[in-house]
């Protein structure tokens, strides 16, 4: 099964996110994006994705939205009725990379695991945290 990851957001976040992700993992044709610009309606995005997902039932679509409860995410909720679509909110670079690199088809368990590991990356980078990393001993190596 093929897989596509579609980033959706208010404004240019999704476009910028795609650019940033590609700096790390290289260009990836499975990754695309839509941004809802000021004055536009989210239905443009939802319709475009719906059309693509219906035309390619053998492809899995992982939609990653910027904000839970935001209108773009809310609009995309209707797409989850399609069996080849999954929707995740709280877009961040770790999550996007995880989903692009995950083998298709991505299961609900894989999404849950990916979210857990991404949450670890959302953290307060304090002095204490930095110091806790510093065990450089042999015993720790082997």
């Amino acid at each position, binding site marked *: 099964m093929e897989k596509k990851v579609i980033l959706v957001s208010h404004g240019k976040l999704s476009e910028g996110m795609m650019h940033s992700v590609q*700096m*790390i*993992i*290289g260009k990836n044709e499975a990754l695309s994006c839509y941004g809802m610009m000021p004055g536009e309606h989210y239905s443009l995005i939802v319709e475009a994705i719906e059309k693509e997902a219906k035309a390619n039932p053998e492809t899995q679509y992982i939609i990653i939205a910027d904000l839970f409860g935001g209108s773009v995410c809310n609009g995309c909720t209707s797409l989850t009725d399609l069996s080849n679509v999954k929707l995740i909110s709280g877009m961040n670079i770790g999550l996007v*990379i995880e989903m692009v*690199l995950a083998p298709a088809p991505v299961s609900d368990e894989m999404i849950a695991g990916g979210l857990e*590991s991404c949450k*670890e990356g959302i953290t307060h*980078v304090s002095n204490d*945290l*930095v*110091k806790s*990393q*510093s065990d*450089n001993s*042999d015993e*720790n*190596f*082997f």
Partner: protein
Amino acid sequence: MISMVRIDDRLIHGQVAVMWSKQLGISRIVVASDKIAANEMQVNALKMAAPAGIKAFILPIQKAVDLLNDPRAASMKILVLSNNPKDIYEVLQGINEKPLLNLANYGRIGGALSDKQKLAETVYVTEEDKEVFKKIFDMGYDFEYQPLPSDTKQSLKELLGGK
């Protein structure tokens, strides 16, 4: 076992932590540098940059060589990093294996770019670097210029004009 040795100004960063570690199934990252190992701030920052499930060690060169030559390291998949060819030359002289060498993101920081020769999009070298590379080539090695696993490999020897 050393899965790969890489020269990269940025050491542990996204391309290395995400893509190469995954591609090679790395379990340990060793940054070999006397200078960096002596800087506690840098050591801690680099350790934090290691991805979940991979332990990073920032070690003086001799210490790194000792660990890499330890029989217990044979069953591990280790990525060795440094930010300059001299360190890598020293590591290669000390270790018992003959690992794959990789290079990307080198020479863009430190010194004026105008004094350097551009070999690839992300690689700039000085005359001094070239001397060191030559010594490494004389040991029977070449480097692959390859920023990401999905990028096409180029031989450093060829980029340097076959010297």
